[in-house]
């Protein structure tokens, strides 16, 4: 019998570390270019609406647009968590309304201070997520059904919590300031400088460490281009916001959650497992990952973010009423990440897509309002855009399958 030494020298025919140009190009197509496509779509939408009504691209309207997308954007960040594991949460709209109602009632009727009231609202969301996650994992009921039942249940709970009056007006500045605080130009530019510097340091620092360790890294020109692009967007955005009311706190809250969740999904073990469960739950299970634990956490994060979004929406409206969390909110929060490339089938997508997609949807809705279109037309156009986004997702998926990638 032939017994070799454990450390037999490997043949020299192993170019395992050579990163082919084709592979890099593919990653560029999937990463930056996918975002670029959505950004171009946003630019196109803006130009079309601005040609119809020159007020569309005014500083005041763009500031309004940013404020309008905060609630949808925050809820969509949570929706990305469940989309990544290949599930869906239809209760996010109702949960956002209920959480805001809980916060409003304990603040206004029971005299709770803003911080504990907000915390209770978010906890309400988290508890609902835990419940729905456990129902989904324990009884193997499709998430579609669990959260559809949730949608009705939490809508009922919203009416119950609001009581007979049906509306609770928010007056406490600790809550209303969330959506109505604007920072002056100095703070705006300090924020811009800090954001650009931080992004450049993280990007280049990672690049240098990877080079030093001798592992694959994206080419420096691509990284520089990305930093320049981010810098340009930040500077233009801050300049526009400064020429109107200033940098809104609500936008900072949205960005903080987007960046936080982006880091959670791409840089931590939890995020890796989230993608693994969405890609192949069976493979994840065999690798020793607690698949059900990951799923329950995803539902908790989703409902908690729905609560955060609902609280911001209430702060902006200065009230919670029976239609809070209703109307198009649910559909928009789910459509936003899908429009910008997060798959409904699980395992593919990013938190950025929530922000980009919310901007697309917000721009269309804002523009149609500005043109004073009939409700009938607005509904049909919104429906068409959402359908188009899902078709793009399905086509992308079947093309991946044709290439042998599922």
């Amino acid at each position, binding site marked *: *019998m*032939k*017994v*070799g*030494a*454990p*450390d*037999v020298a*490997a*043949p020299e*025919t*192993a*170019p*395992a*570390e*050579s*990163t*082919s140009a*084709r*592979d890099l190009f*593919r*990653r560029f197509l999937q990463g930056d270019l996918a975002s670029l496509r959505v950004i171009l779509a946003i630019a196109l939408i803006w130009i079309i609406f601005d040609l119809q009504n020159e007020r569309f691209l005014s500083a005041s309207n763009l500031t309004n647009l940013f404020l309008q997308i905060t609630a949808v954007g925050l809820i969509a960040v949570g929706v990305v968590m469940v989309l990544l594991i290949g599930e869906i949460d239809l209760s996010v709209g109702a949960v956002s309304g209920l959480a805001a109602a809980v916060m409003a009632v304990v603040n206004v009727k029971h005299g709770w201070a803003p911080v504990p009231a907000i915390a209770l609202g978010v906890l309400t969301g988290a508890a609902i997520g835990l419940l729905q996650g456990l129902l989904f994992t324990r009884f193997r009921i499709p998430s579609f059904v669990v959260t559809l039942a949730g949608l009705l249940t939490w809508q009922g709970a919203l009416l119950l919590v609001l009581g007979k009056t049906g509306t609770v007006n928010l007056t406490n500045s600790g809550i209303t300031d969330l959506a109505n605080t604007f920072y002056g130009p100095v703070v705006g530019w300090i924020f811009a400088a800090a954001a650009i510097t931080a992004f450049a340091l993280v990007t280049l620092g990672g690049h240098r*460490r*990877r080079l030093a*360790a*001798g*592992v*694959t890294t994206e080419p420096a020109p691509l990284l520089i281009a990305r930093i320049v692009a981010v810098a340009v967007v930040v500077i233009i955005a801050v300049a526009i916001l400064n020429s109107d009311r200033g940098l809104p706190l609500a936008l900072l809250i949205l960005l903080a959650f987007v960046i936080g969740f982006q880091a*959670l999904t791409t*840089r*931590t*073990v*939890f995020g*890796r497992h989230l*993608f*693994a469960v*969405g*890609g*192949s739950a*069976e*493979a*994840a299970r*065999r*690798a*020793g*990952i607690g698949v059900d634990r990951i799923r329950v956490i995803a539902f908790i994060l989703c409902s908690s973010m729905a609560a955060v979004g609902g609280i911001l929406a209430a702060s902006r409206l200065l009230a919670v009423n029976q239609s809070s969390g209703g109307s198009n909110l649910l559909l928009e929060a789910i459509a936003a990440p899908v429009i910008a490339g997060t798959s409904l089938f699980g*395992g*593919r997508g990013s938190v950025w897509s929530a922000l980009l997609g919310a901007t697309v949807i917000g721009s269309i809705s804002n523009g149609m309002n500005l043109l004073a279109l009939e409700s009938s037309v607005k509904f049909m156009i919104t429906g068409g855009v959402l359908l188009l986004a899902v078709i793009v997702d399905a086509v992308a998926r079947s093309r*991946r399958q044709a*290439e*042998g*990638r*599922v």
Partner: protein
Amino acid sequence: MTEPVLSARGLSKRFGPVQALDGVDIDVRAGEVLALVGDNGAGKSTLIKLISGIYSVDSGEFSFEGRPVKIGGPASATELGIATVYQDLALCDNLDVVANLFLGQEEIVTGPSSAFRALDEIEMERRSHQLLRQLSVTIPSVRSEVGTLSGGQRQQVAVARSLLGEPQVVMLDEPTAALGVVQTKQVLDLIGRLRERDLGVIVISHNLANVFEVADRIFVLRLGRKAGLFEKSKVSEEQVVGAITGADTAEQERQP
């Protein structure tokens, strides 16, 4: 002959009325490739699943490196140093090679960010390069999505992943099924390199040409029982086929 790294005595497993395995003895030594062959339903997969802890034995004993051991589940088999690569590979197509290699056993950054269980991508990628180079695995990049790889490359990634836990025994279920000629060659070469690393390798295969190319010994199962154990160098393909089909009962008792 060297001491077997893993040996099992009198393994039996019954599923309802079906006696899937009936008193099978099997040994695998460090630095050898033992091929496990037999017709459909002969008990090959059952045997692998007993050793890898997926099924519990009805009766029978294991010893590992000479010590008697119990295999209570997949985790205890892994802990002993028994790794299994299943036919369906269990890879996540949406993740890259590094992420798949370390799935469920990710490296975590030390320091303040360890509280967030931040991934140490650099360390994982470095170790991936090292492992794949040792095994002479050829893939476009360790950052390729596994879904973009060919069947042979995926098989090699699955085998490489099983080696991260530094096992002493690796079991491969039909590693060359559904592979083309070139890819089959790559996987067979890889199995040869596992032997060079002094691992005990058990390979299930239907393809006798592959078995004869890579195996040192050939273990034949028929209807849940051992139907022969042959040194490859001392047996012809016809004799093995005879043992598999039961046509050549005279060969049954032939031992190396």
